[in-house]
């Protein structure tokens, strides 16, 4: 039995086709996904996965344990700015989420060809928590004259085997988008390592003119 996929509005995770996923569940994607959560949750399937953007799953289902929402997980397919989505699904659960629902959702996404990493319901999940402070540091040190953008990128590619350096990556996927995500996380976490660096601020100001 394939998983039901309901796309309501624009979805960052699935801008194009959604691959078939095996299992008994519902994937709710798109900007209006949250509006149909409670209906989907009452259908009694193994899991309901709701697409998250920068918000937490708790924003949609609250923070208190509840037998209906215990089958709801959050997910986001990681995507940097305007780049195509990656193959990573970050799968979010609460400490009271039904373990079988998490396992079923994981199996469904994996069956659709995705790589799944599980995480708790925290701002930025895994990848944004790690790359945003790093990107801000790169942009600040570029201003400081640590090395040229090209040398910085070359160092990180040769030294760590990165497929692309951070400066080229940010230029390709959008500094303004980095600003947007980083600013949300700065607000959510109150941590100034997420304060968008000057270069991102300028890109964002120019994009919003």
């Amino acid at each position: 039995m394939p998983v039901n996929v309901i796309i309501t509005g624009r979805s960052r995770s699935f801008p194009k086709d959604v691959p078939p996923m095996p299992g008994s569940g519902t994937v709710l994607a798109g900007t209006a996904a949250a509006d149909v959560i409670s209906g989907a949750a009452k259908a009694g399937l193994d899991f309901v996965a709701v697409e998250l953007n920068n918000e937490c799953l708790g924003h949609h289902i609250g923070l208190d344990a509840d037998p209906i929402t215990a089958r709801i997980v959050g997910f986001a397919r990681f995507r940097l700015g305007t780049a195509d989505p990656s193959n990573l699904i970050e799968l979010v659960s609460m400490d009271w989420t039904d373990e079988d629902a998490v396992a079923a959702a994981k199996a469904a996404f994996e069956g659709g060809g995705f790589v799944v990493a599980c995480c708790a319901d925290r701002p930025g999940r895994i990848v944004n928590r790690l790359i945003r402070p790093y990107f801000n540091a790169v942009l600040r040190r570029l201003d400081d004259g640590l090395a040229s953008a090209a040398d910085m990128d070359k160092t990180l590619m040769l030294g760590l085997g990165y497929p692309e350096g951070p400066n080229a990556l940010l230029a390709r996927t959008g500094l303004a988008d980095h600003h947007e995500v980083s600013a949300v996380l700065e607000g959510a976490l109150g941590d100034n390592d997420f304060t968008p660096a000057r270069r991102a601020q300028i890109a964002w100001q120019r994009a919003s003119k």
Partner: protein
Amino acid sequence: MGAGIAIVAARAGFTVRVFDTSREALDRAHGQTGDFLEKSVARGKLSPIDRDATLARLIGSTRIADLADCEFVIEAIYENLTAKHDLLGQLDQVCPPETIFASNTSTISITEIAAGSGRADRFVGMHFCLPAQLMRLVEMSPGLNTSDETWRAAWAFCEALGQKPVATSDTPGFVLNYFLIPYHNDAIRLVEQGVASAADIDIAMKAAMGYSMGPFELLDLVGADTQKLLCDAMFGLTNEKRAACPPLIRRMIAAGHLGKKSGRGFHHYDDSKMFGA
């Protein structure tokens, strides 16, 4: 680290004097070098003739006087400014004035090390990556007193080694460690805070960013003990909170979970051969 750099230079055709005060360390390096070159032959990367020639160009010694004929010296002793000054001060007496000195330091200022070398104008930073015998990158940094002539000669020597130099300023951690140490600490803090397991974080970073290794796979190679030393050095120099050593690293060191070398770090392992061997 020094053993890996010696392999690079010998493989590139230079006669290399490998100096260590510890005979045991020299013997261990010699054994690991033999294993590594043997594996290179088995993989078809090196001919048996080149293996023998490379080995013959590596001459170990515990006597500093044996470095008297070196045109270039790369210092890779433990990360301590006084120890480096001691050694370089002695080398300044042993080597001819035209010999260029370089330091492989990861965190100490090149200008500060050079200041105790007796030849600050003929001194550069040459930071190789672990494992040096496999990694091409060398971060090159001039000290405040490095002459242009020394810089150009050192750059050319680095290229002659078959390495890829990049220019960075003489600031803590240069490029690589400046970004890597805090990024690793951020990943460790996600584990401390229960956001995700080390395994899930590795999976996520590889799939999202196309990285060949996750942060914890790399941390296990670096070693929890080395990560702590790097953090303490970097935090001490920059006072940047992301560089501060996470408490979990201290607990792992106390528990003996040092990484690949102890069989257990953030992941479990069952061998401790030299990387790439």
